[in-house]
Every structure is written in structure tokens, then in C-alpha cells.
């Protein structure tokens, strides 16, 4: 099994939102960062991967199995972390654990207590007294304490302070020491991804814009700045999006080498950050291939 998650020709629509014919593979043994603006469809897709939503048509396989036949087996091997964790507010952590632990055959109580220590979580305080950051840590402790092979995280770092965010990233690096583990993580915080993600999947308006290796993005995409006079019908084709001002143009390209060959030293070419790629791709095309 080369892929931890496989979506094939998935369709799903409700209201004005729709996902049409979407296919996606998440590589086993690596970290995939899942990016896209609000309403792009990331959470819908994650819910389908978790079988919390069912596609109208298409196939979803997780850890090589489908939900129809193996729902329990799949779920036992997934650790799910999301920023709005469903926890019983009136319970304390210790009671919450008593509810959750029996769901997993591989539950590891010792490991759970280690994480509670490490995250400084009080076992005897009611969950309603916890801050958002603490609730996230609770969610994380539960996800990591049953030796899950696949961690699915929906914006896990959104409520974390910068100090714990670093520790959190360190924790995920520790998980990835084991090459059998896979992480899919959606986020708005791009700096989290450059230090951890191996693949980036970018989603927009219910579609996958691209799903690529981090290096491929770093090598191909670039921000280009130059004089407006350089732009004409031909040269514009090298760019995905162009902003013109009186002081010059700024544009995104997905073909760094071609732009360099074309303009040489007449323009400034800089590495594009994931934020810049997202921002400039919002209009539509995000992967212009020039032939």
C-alpha cells in the first residue's frame, strides 16, 4: 500500500457548494499539508476521509480499505485532531479518557499519561475550565495514545501559542521517525508546513489546484517583478496572475526557468512563498504550463 488515503472521482454537493470528480492520493510515510482559503472545501474533504460525510459518488479508500466493509478497523487506526474538539464539558479529563479508551484496541494508557504530563494537562479539572489551547492538547493526546497509523488534523495549530506550536511540530517530527506513519494536516499557518510537510495539496472552490512535492513548488514557482513595458500578449502567458502598478508589475509564475531564460536580468525573480502562491492563484488558474 503506497497511499494512506485515496479518493477516486469523488462527487459531493450541497447547497451552492460542490466537489466534482475529485481524485487525490495521500502518500504513506509522509506529511501532506493541505492548504486553501476559507470555504475551499478542505473540511468537507476531511469529513469524507473520516466517513463523517459520504460522497454522492466515487470511491474513498483509507489505509487500503473502504468504509463499507471496514469502518471500525479504519477508525481504530486513525488519530483525528481538529480545532473544535467535541469534548464533554462537564467531565474531567480522566473520565473523558474512560469514555474514549475502550474504543481503541491499541489504547496505551501509559503513553496517554506521558502526554498529559508533557502537555501539563490536569486530569482532575473539568474540561469546561480548559483554554482553547488546552483543548487542542487534549485532542492531540487522545489522537496519539492509540498508536494510530494515520493522523488527520484539521487546523490543529490555529489556537496554539507560538511556544506550544513549536513543541507540537517537534511532536509530529517524532511521529514521523516511524516510516509507517502518515500525517495529513490542514492549516492556514504556512510556516508550519515548510518545516514539516513533504507534499502540499492546494484546494480551491471544491477542486484540487495542485498536489505536489514541496521541492517542486519551491523550484517552479516564483514571484517576478519588473517594468510594465516588458509585458505583452506573449510574455504575459508565462504568468498565472499579474498585478500592475505605476512602479512596475509583480506576477506569479509556475515556470521559473522559462521566465529566467526569457527576461534574464531585466526582472527580479524571488522564491514564492505558499501564501503568495495561494494569493495569486485565487483568480483561477494556478498551474500554467507553457508549451
Amino acid at each position, binding site marked *: 500500500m503506497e497511499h494512506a488515503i485515496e479518493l477516486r472521482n469523488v462527487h459531493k454537493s450541497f447547497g451552492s457548494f460542490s466537489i466534482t470528480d475529485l481524485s487525490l492520493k495521500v502518500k504513506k*510515510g*509522509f*506529511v501532506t499539508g493541505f492548504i486553501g482559503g476559507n470555504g475551499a472545501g478542505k473540511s468537507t474533504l476531511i469529513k469524507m476521509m473520516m466517513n463523517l460525510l459520504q460522497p454522492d459518488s466515487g470511491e474513498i479508500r483509507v489505509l487500503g480499505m473502504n468504509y463499507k466493509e471496514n469502518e471500525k478497523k479504519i477508525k481504530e487506526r486513525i488519530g483525528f485532531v481538529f480545532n473544535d474538539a467535541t469534548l464533554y464539558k462537564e467531565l474531567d479529563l480522566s473520565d473523558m479518557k474512560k469514555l474514549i479508551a475502550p474504543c481503541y484496541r491499541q489504547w496505551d494508557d501509559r503513553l496517554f499519561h506521558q502526554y498529559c504530563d508533557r502537555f501539563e494537562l490536569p486530569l482532575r479539572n473539568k474540561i469546561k475550565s480548559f483554554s482553547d489551547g488546552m483543548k487542542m492538547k487534549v485532542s492531540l493526546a487522545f489522537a496519539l495514545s492509540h498508536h494510530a497509523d494515520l493522523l488527520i488534523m484539521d487546523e490543529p495549530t490555529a489556537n496554539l501559542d507560538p511556544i506550544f506550536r513549536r513543541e507540537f*511540530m*517537534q511532536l509530529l*517530527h*517524532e511521529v*514521523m*521517525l*516511524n*516510516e509507517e506513519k502518515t500525517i495529513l494536516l490542514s492549516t492556514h499557518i504556512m510556516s508550519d508546513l*515548510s*518545516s*514539516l*510537510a*513533504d*507534499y502540499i495539496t492546494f484546494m480551491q472552490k471544491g477542486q484540487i489546484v495542485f498536489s505536489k*512535492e*514541496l*521541492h517542486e513548488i*519551491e*523550484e517552479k514557482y516564483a514571484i517576478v517583478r519588473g517594468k510594465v513595458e516588458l509585458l505583452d500578449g506573449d510574455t504575459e502567458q508565462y504568468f498565472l496572475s499579474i498585478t500592475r502598478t505605476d512602479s512596475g508589475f509583480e506576477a506569479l509564475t509556475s515556470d521559473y526557468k522559462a521566465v529566467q531564460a526569457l527576461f534574464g536580468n531585466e526582472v527580479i525573480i524571488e522564491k514564492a512563498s505558499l501564501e503568495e502562491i495561494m494569493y495569486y492563484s485565487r483568480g483561477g488558474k494556478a498551474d500554467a504550463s507553457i508549451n
Partner: protein
Amino acid sequence: MQILISNSSKEAIYIQIKNQIKEKVLSGELVEGDALPSMRQLAMDLHISVITTKRAYEELEKEGFIYSIVGKGSYIAEQNADVIREKKLTTIEEKLVEVIANSKEVGLSLQDIKDWITILYGER
């Protein structure tokens, strides 16, 4: 094995790793049979993605600096004497170019440089 990477460098991180390991081999700090940290361990230590270290190791392997045994790890390969000589010659050439550029800046002639080198060479 110590490796220092710069996030603000123009050079891609996998290239920085590759070059530093190469330097350690050429300087003799790492020798044949020495084990490298696992790709995943190195990724964690350097706070970078696994695929970055994977790429660095793959390229080192392609260039003959290291070899990998599935399930065990990566090791420094036997170095070909000719290859090392070739690499040293490249380094010497680079330094000479630098010497010439600096000499021209302060107005030294070719003969001046030759004389100087003759004296230094004789002393060593």
C-alpha cells in the same frame, strides 16, 4: 555529525545538506563505512521535512558519496582517488581565480604573482 542549515540562504536546504556532507568526506572528517543519521532522524533534528533529507541522501548516493542498505541505513562509500583529485583540482582552480582577481585589483602583474608563488612554494 554536525550540519548547519540556513533558512534565509538562496541555496535549497537539500543542497546545503548535500554540500556539507560532501565537504566532510573530502576533508576526511567522514570516512568509508561511517554511518549517517537516518533520513527521518536528521529531518527531525534539523526541523525540516523528511523529503528534503531524502533528496539530499539520494543525490549523494547518485554521486557516489554514500550508499544505503534498505532497513539499515546510509553509509559513507569508498572514495575513488581520481575523483578526489579531480575535486581538489577544481578547488585549487577556484582559489587561483580569486588570487588573480585580487592581484589585478591592487595592480600586481602576472610576473609579480609568479615570483611570489615561487618564494612561497620553495619555503614549504
